[in-house]
């Protein structure tokens, strides 16, 4: 799998960095396949909640964690982006 961000993934990475004040991480440094939360980016569950709010403002969609598929969405940048895009299409 490619480790290059797609334009959509880059936009989401920018939102992650700006909404969570990750000033010493640049959006380009978030690898699409690398564990986003609980890994070396140092993001925890409170960040997930903050990010969900930022995503609802920017994309107009609400994230959920009520089933296995939704929880998997938070694994990495790529899966989160796919999840957000599929919610946008549904909405």
């Amino acid at each position, binding site marked *: 799998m490619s480790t290059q961000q797609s334009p959509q993934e880059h936009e989401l990475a920018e939102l992650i960095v700006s*909404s*969570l*004040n*990750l*000033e*010493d991480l640049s959006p380009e440094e978030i690898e699409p396949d690398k564990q986003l939360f609980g890994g070396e980016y*140092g993001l*925890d*569950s*409170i960040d*997930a*909640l*903050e990010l*969900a*709010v930022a995503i*609802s*403002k920017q994309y107009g969609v*609400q*994230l*959920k*964690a*009520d089933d296995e598929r939704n929880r998997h969405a938070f694994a990495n940048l790529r899966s989160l982006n796919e999840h957000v895009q599929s919610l946008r299409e549904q909405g």
Partner: protein
Amino acid sequence: MTTLPLTTRSLDELVMLHGGEPVSVGRFVARAEALAGQLPPGAPVINLCQDRHAFSVTFAAAVVAGGSNLLPANRLKATVDELVDSFAGAVVVADCPLEGFAGTVIDPSEALDSREQAQRISRIPADQRAAVVFTSGSTGRASRIEKPWRTLHDSSLLNLAQLDPPQGARVLATVPPQHMWGLETSVLMPWFGAVTVSSAHPFFVADICRQLEELEQPRVLVSTPVHLRALVESGIELPDVERIYSATAPLSRSLARRLERLSGAVVTEIYGCSETGCLARRQTARVADWQLFEAFELTPEADGTVARAAHLPGPVRLMDHLEFRTRDSFRLLGRQSDLVNIAGKRGSLAELTGVLLDIPGVLDGVIFQPPEDEDGPARRLAALVVAPNLEPADIRRALGRRIDAAFMPRPLRLVEKLPRAETGKLPRRSLLQFFARTCRQAG
């Protein structure tokens, strides 16, 4: 020997909603008794159940079996191993697999599915150690707080009188059952008052709203400022809620007002700590003064305020500076400067700074709490570090090995030197001015 009942509710009342299943007191007690039969009598039980229903049944089972619930601050293997080593005869009850743990784990699932009805309610010796709550320190060292059954029993009755939830309320909690705030409200409150708690533990705002909508009215939401802020900020339409209780961190007045407007709820903020349980309340949208719960007495002493109550095992020194308005009302003037509370975890800034200074290559540095932005994102610590030959990533990695993730400073900035006074002291005022200058440069 003084004994107190496990629950003061009658057997046919509804204590919990577990998924689609309404759980009566009789069925709940029968499940607890079935599980108690699997436990060695009097054993300390490391209660690691995640689901609120499983956790509550296990909590009751340990108490009925004459033992106690050990409630660690996390489920890490090292934490569990240490508890097993330090409490003779301790057993683990868990509702999902424990990674890496080699000891025996008791599976509660059979007892949790029981369809039996208990015919009577056990009485528990008032002095029985019913729970031991561990709060995580900044570097992982835990402090230990003992809760005799009398304390849990009496404080539950006190909380019901003071929080005054509507009769028959359905309670949804966004907090886990293991920590004091969740334990008092979402586990114990329904054992002593006419409320029914949902076993759900929603996280994102869409989940919280959906779970609320599934509950009959009147609805009560037990939460924290972090979740409540997300609820308001996300722009989602809030279901009608009668009452919202918030604790664990300061709630801003503007957030309380917006919540009241959007949900129709009365928002009650609760002040307390793991040692005392709930201690005072206020309707944050309207008043600044905290109303002390009856049964508590606060005494100003030279190095802080001491809380006493007949149901507590001993006096408790509070972590905050208080200004008394009357005998039973006060304002909070902030934490004693060294102590911080991030995401429900307590830390000492001096201890954290000590860990930072221990990193090879770090010449000087400080970890501190930046001033609060009332409605800003969740609070994080910040660090300024003098380390000419290190990168921020090196320092974060080194810190990550020794401190809890909640305390990881963000931002962590490298600077040429800190604004120390001639005495070597780092006055907070000059530190914050200096930090603000580095923010402008960074931003």
